[in-house]
């Protein structure tokens, strides 16, 4: 008679630290993530390689419609503008444009991308402190909204408009004290010291410029909804003041972005999943301040939101593979993945939720998760209670949709495939993995360096 053998699990011994919590304390079991939108992680990696970025169109659209619902049920005129720098893969941008979002760009390159995606100039908001003369000329010609960052730019736009003989549509980027830190006073004109008002007084009498909007962007990963209420109130006050002095109606108020995602910031005590405000929380703070402001009822401006991170972070996963386990000198376990900080840039500020793709045992070890780069900074998670995986096992890094696919570095290795799972479960490669020729095509070797002998 053949007896069935038990399944093997790596032997684990954990010291019970007096005073510190153990099994029922910090070691809470990690939920595994065997599939994304019903497609097994194993088969995605089998077909498209590892590492692999996976975007869920379903999650993007659901998140977007949640955000739209939160704002449009509270305020009549709401417009989202997709923040290109958060994720400018064309497929992603087009999902947002299909959802009705305009484009918010911060460089000539992003502007070109928006145009190539079929966005008409009048639906492009042009932000950022580094616009070139060519950028401004194009924006004026195509009727885009130029968000002014400083006086030098204001004068530059005046000059361009005059030369082109076309009125430029501009908005003022304003920085202010909303009670949070750090204060982003490097962008735009300051509210409290009167700089913004001075700019208004410069723009409005000038026939070359049309002031269409007021814009602020109070920071990034803002957990305080009250800061948005303060910012909205200040922009509304400025709107009223402009109406009173110049009898000029501001067409839109743009609250920028900065909504937090559910990722956990390094050093935060509570996880982001518990502290991140909902779209409803943000919407309530912003729209209530607008509705309760002194702005005349028939002159209520359009409310523009440039939310990036909160709309896309949850929709992206990064799949990877365990390359090795290694015992460090102090007895800690280290796990080496094929995912490095070069493609997971956000691991510098997030405690990313890394989970195994398959069910594991309850036993975890204090593990440091490293990437594959030959660089000491290549750390994905510093100390995390993690089940012991074997070489070849797969992991899923959750919530990587924002910034990684734009800030990633081509460093040491190629950038991997990015796929999108469509609404019907169809998988498309939306950005092909790089290979040797995609990188060498921009290089040139001078003749005298072609030959050598070793």
């Amino acid at each position, binding site marked *: 008679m053949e007896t069935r053998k038990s399944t093997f699990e790596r032997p684990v011994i954990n010291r*019970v630290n007096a005073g510190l919590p153990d099994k029922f*304390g910090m070691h*809470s079991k990690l939920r595994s993530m065997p599939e994304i939108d019903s497609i097994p992680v194993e088969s995605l990696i089998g077909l498209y390689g590892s590492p692999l970025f996976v975007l869920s169109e379903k999650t993007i659209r659901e998140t977007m419609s949640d955000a739209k619902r939160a704002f449009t049920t509270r305020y009549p005129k709401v417009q989202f503008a997709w923040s290109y720098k958060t994720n400018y893969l064309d497929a992603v941008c087009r999902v947002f444009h299909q959802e009705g979002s305009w484009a918010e760009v911060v460089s000539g390159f992003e502007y070109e991308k928006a145009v190539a995606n079929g966005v008409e100039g009048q639906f492009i908001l042009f932000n950022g402190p580094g616009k070139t003369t060519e950028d401004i000329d194009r924006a004026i010609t195509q009727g885009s909204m130029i968000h002014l960052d400083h006086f030098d730019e204001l004068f530059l736009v005046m000059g361009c408009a005059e030369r082109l003989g076309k009125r430029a549509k501009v908005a003022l980027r304003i920085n202010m004290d909303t009670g949070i830190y750090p204060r982003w006073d490097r962008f735009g004109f300051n509210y409290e010291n009167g700089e913004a008002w001075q700019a208004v007084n410069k723009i409005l009498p000038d026939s070359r410029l049309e002031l269409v909007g007021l814009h602020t962007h109070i920071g990034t990963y803002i957990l305080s909804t009250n800061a948005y209420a303060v910012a909205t109130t200040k922009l509304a006050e400025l709107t009223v003041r402009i109406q009173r002095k110049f009898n000029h109606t501001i067409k839109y108020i743009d609250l920028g972005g900065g909504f937090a995602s559910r990722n956990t910031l390094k050093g935060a*005590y*509570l*996880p982001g*999943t518990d502290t991140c405000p909902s779209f409803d929380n943000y919407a309530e703070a912003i729209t209530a301040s607008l509705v309760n402001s002194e702005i005349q009822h028939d002159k209520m401006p359009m409310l523009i939101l440039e939310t990036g991170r909160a709309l896309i972070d949850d929709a992206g996963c990064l799949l990877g593979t365990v390359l090795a386990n290694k015992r460090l000198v102090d007895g800690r376990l280290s796990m080496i993945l094929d995912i490095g900080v070069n493609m997971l840039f956000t691991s510098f500020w997030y405690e990313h939720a890394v989970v195994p793709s398959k069910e594991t045992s309850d036993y975890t070890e204090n593990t440091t998760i490293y990437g594959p780069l030959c660089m000491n900074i290549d750390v994905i998670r510093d100390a995390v209670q993690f089940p012991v995986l074997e070489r070849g096992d797969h992991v899923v890094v959750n919530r990587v949709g924002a910034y990684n696919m734009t800030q990633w570095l081509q460093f040491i290795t190629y950038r991997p495939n990015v796929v999108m799972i469509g609404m019907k479960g169809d998988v498309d490669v939306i950005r092909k993995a790089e290979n040797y020729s995609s990188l060498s095509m921009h290089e040139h070797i001078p003749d005298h360096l072609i030959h050598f002998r070793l």
Partner: protein
Amino acid sequence: MSKRKLNIAITGLNNTDNPGPGIPVIRGLKESEAFEARIIGLAYENLEPGIYMKDLVDKAYQIPYPSSGSQNLMQRLEQIHARESIDVLIPNLDAELYTFMMSARKLEEMGIHTFLPTLEQFEERHKANLPSYGEKYGIRVPASMAIIGHEAIASLSDEFEYPVLVKGKFYDAYLAYNPEQVAMYYNKISAKWGVPVIIQEFIKGTEVNVVALGDGKGNTIAAVPMRKQYITDKGKAWSGITLADGQMIELTRQLITQTRWRGGMELEMIKTSDEKYYMIEINPRIPAWVYLAVAAGQNIPEALVKMALGMDVQPFSTYQVGKMFIRYSYDLIGDIKQFEKLSIQGEL
């Protein structure tokens, strides 16, 4: 008539030399004349003394830290609830309050009653918000300013007289006598807790405290003032005495009426030589010295449980003045078998 039996879950069993309020709260509950309390202790760490105090804690469970996420905590509570059918839960630690407040509705649906402040009440009393809190509710608070860089230090003397307190946004406070010291403490604190660093007017006087209970409708159900008589080197009360101080009670009532405070609270104030009171901190929970209030005639834990269960509670009108507490330590004897059971099964 036999007393109603209640299963009450309590956290903060860390009755060490920097004690959590759990054990004093339990002592109050065990003395209740209205109900018979069976105590389910909830511990984060395996050496919290309360776990091993069998005469006070009937059953102890380990629970995951709030930092591992409310989902994990709630799952563990569901497990415990299925076995113990908890009637009331009293969280006693600062770090866990946010998570319990967020989960209060879910707990209520499970049949676990709590009596906690609202998130808004909790948020607005944070240390960094003290000036606006004082302004909003007409309470005297020390002048303070949040700074985010060295540049602000030079001009501090325009607004403050030295010495000033330099405080971290969560913990730490140092007294600085000149700008150089402010800069030094600023570096020390910002490296540890980040910015802003709070510069606060130093108020000379005696530190006095009130433990109080609000019903959430503006009524003060209980309020007992106390002065610390001696402080340990950790800055914790070693001994304290109840005071007859009408002004402190009045201030507490005003605050509770205006904020409609719900649940237990501790007010920390400085009383100056010219009889002025400055509010320096508002703790949104019962303090560890609450048993002094119980002994003085106001069983705050009992009243809180009754309110959590929706019972009508009449405000206390008196307390005994001159009651004292003297904290002492005591070596409980445990066994490795208990430690094993707790480590393996997460309960004892």
